[in-house]
């Protein structure tokens, strides 16, 4: 069994209440930080822990915190990004539902470290039932004296509020989130200035993912160095993985970074193998924005090394033969899945979610969706494949925010690793009329028949 520091108590009845959470050692990090440490010392522990942003980008949290500008007389804000919308990712939802107090506790400790007196949890509107859960947890924390004026007699004040969004993937991008929190459309801002300098209401702001903020709790409790002993190399700590798709045991798993991908998929402790004992075809290991990997490159790197669940190992080989840990949205395709249909599905998603601000993304995602739709439905031409690669390459790097890249990468990766499958759709249009065209005979088998 791997070590757990976030979901350690998630099976305990009533852990979502203050009483039980406190009994299990909850809010110790707040006491330790406020009573025995200076804000800078808390930041230092987070730096030592090696914690990296758990929302997808993997940027070192301590470094992000140390960039926060501190001009005198200007308010600073901590905003929690609970806009979890990356397809395949549902870990934050699980954590907030099971154990809302760990997020509230993390928000208090982190706000103290950053010198924020008002903090917000921006949560996607579809998770409204969680607003109710979080609001209750926050009310309990106020009643216990961990929020409000003069917390633990220290003179430190903090107000914490939940703010619902209303259905927009783009608001997971931190500057779009801030626009949305200001009551505007979720159009990402040009950077610089970064939010650390001019964020919410043009004040210095840190935006962190739910899991990142929750991880501050064990980091302060254990000490940064101790936390850094969990995991492997620069992938310190544990990671919540949302496991879905064609596996026997879907769900949220807290893993120690460094276990092998093969173990994660096949061991009974985690995914339990492929549903109906079919064959593993491919996997998207870090949310829909990261490149898909075929079985061979998923379990071993191009150099033949065992692929591990860590930032470094999953990106080994770059985009040519690797992928990314991303948000930890890990979904598995069995032999029946059609990669073209999946890629079209993703393109439809990005086209729907593009905010429309930058033309390469607004127009390009629509073109990709259209081209993929016609290939999948047997109306494609051979030159469409290169056209897709061309459109994807012209979106990538040419937009204000990374949504453009996120739309381009899955298309490029699918063609890179599964080009024959795209060609098959174009060569044999009558064979792909049924939307479940690979259910009876997987593409692997067909390849030999039609080669």
């Amino acid at each position: 069994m791997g070590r757990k520091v976030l979901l350690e108590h998630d099976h305990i009845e009533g852990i979502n209440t203050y009483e039980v959470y406190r009994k299990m050692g909850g809010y110790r990090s707040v006491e330790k930080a406020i009573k025995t440490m200076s804000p800078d010392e808390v930041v230092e522990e987070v730096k030592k822990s090696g914690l990296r942003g758990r929302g997808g980008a993997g940027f070192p949290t301590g470094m992000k915190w140390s960039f926060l500008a501190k001009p005198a007389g200007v308010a600073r804000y901590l905003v929690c990004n609970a806009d979890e919308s990356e397809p395949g990712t549902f870990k934050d939802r699980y954590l907030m539902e099971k154990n809302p107090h760990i997020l509230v506790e993390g928000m208090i400790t982190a706000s103290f470290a950053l010198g924020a007196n008002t903090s917000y949890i921006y949560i996607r509107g579809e998770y409204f039932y969680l607003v109710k859960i979080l609001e209750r947890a926050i009310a309990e924390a106020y009643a216990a004296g961990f929020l409000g004026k003069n917390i633990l007699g220290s003179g430190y004040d903090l107000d914490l509020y939940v703010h619902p969004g209303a259905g927009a993937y783009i608001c997971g991008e931190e500057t779009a989130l801030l626009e949305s929190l200001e009551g505007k459309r979720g159009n990402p801002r040009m950077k610089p200035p970064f939010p650390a300098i001019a964020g919410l209401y043009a004040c210095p702001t840190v935006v962190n993912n739910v899991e990142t903020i929750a991880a501050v709790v064990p980091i302060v409790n254990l000490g940064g160095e101790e936390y850094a002993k969990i995991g492997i190399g620069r992938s310190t700590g544990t990671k919540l993985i949302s496991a879905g798709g064609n596996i026997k045991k879907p769900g949220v798993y807290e893993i120690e970074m460094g276990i092998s991908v093969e173990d994660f998929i096949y061991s009974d402790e985690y995914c339990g193998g492929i549903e109906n004992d079919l064959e593993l075809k491919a996997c998207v290991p870090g949310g829909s924005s990261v490149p898909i990997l075929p079985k061979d490159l998923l379990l071993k790197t191009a150099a033949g090394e065992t692929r591990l669940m860590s930032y470094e190992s999953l990106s080994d080989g770059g985009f040519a033969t690797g992928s990314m840990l991303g948000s930890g949205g890990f979904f598995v395709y069995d032999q029946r899945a059609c990669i073209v249909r999946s890629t079209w599905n993703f393109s439809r998603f990005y086209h729907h979610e593009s905010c429309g601000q930058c033309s390469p993304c607004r127009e390009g995602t629509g073109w990709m969706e259209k081209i993929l739709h016609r290939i999948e439905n047997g109306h494609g031409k051979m030159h469409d494949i290169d056209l897709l690669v061309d459109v994807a390459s012209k979106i990538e790097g040419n937009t204000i925010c990374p949504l453009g890249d996120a739309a381009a990468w899955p298309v490029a990766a699918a063609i890179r690793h599964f080009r024959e499958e795209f060609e098959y759709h174009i060569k044999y249009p009558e064979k792909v009329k049924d939307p479940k065209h690979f259910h009876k005979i997987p593409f692997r088998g067909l390849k030999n028949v039609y080669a």
Partner: protein
Amino acid sequence: MAKFSEDTYDLAQRLIKRYPEGKQKSALIPILHLAQAEFGGWLSAEVMDYVASILNIKPIEVYEVASFYSMFNLKPVGKCLIEVCRTAPCWLKGSEDITQHIEKKLSIKDGETTKDGMFTLKTVECLGSCGTAPMMQCGHKYYENLTTDSVDEIISTLKEQNQAQVYVSNDFFREN
């Protein structure tokens, strides 16, 4: 003219106080949610103008936000807006079959409302329920691990209840 109940109006005022003075526009999205829940599941121009007046902002500032976010309906919808997730992780687990089943059962297509005004069907992007796929949302409730049988049950229960399903109730927010 549209007007909140006293209870909702008070809540809206409390929500405005969550943001610094002069930044009351921040409360726009939460208040639009309250408005949609209270005024029949969608936002008419009249309702949006009313929200603008509460926040002391221009109506256009409300329209541009309401039209950006997918949870705000700018046209009437059925009492029960059924939103089926269509994104890849749900697709892998059979969401296309679920959508087709509902279309057939209710004799409507994606985006349409039944003649009796009871149900609207909409396919939506990932709702963060990929480990319990396929799934759909109706109001604030998630219905997970769907099968055609469980969908039948859910729909007949909703029909029996004959109540508007909303994303938010006033009691979701704490009192302070």
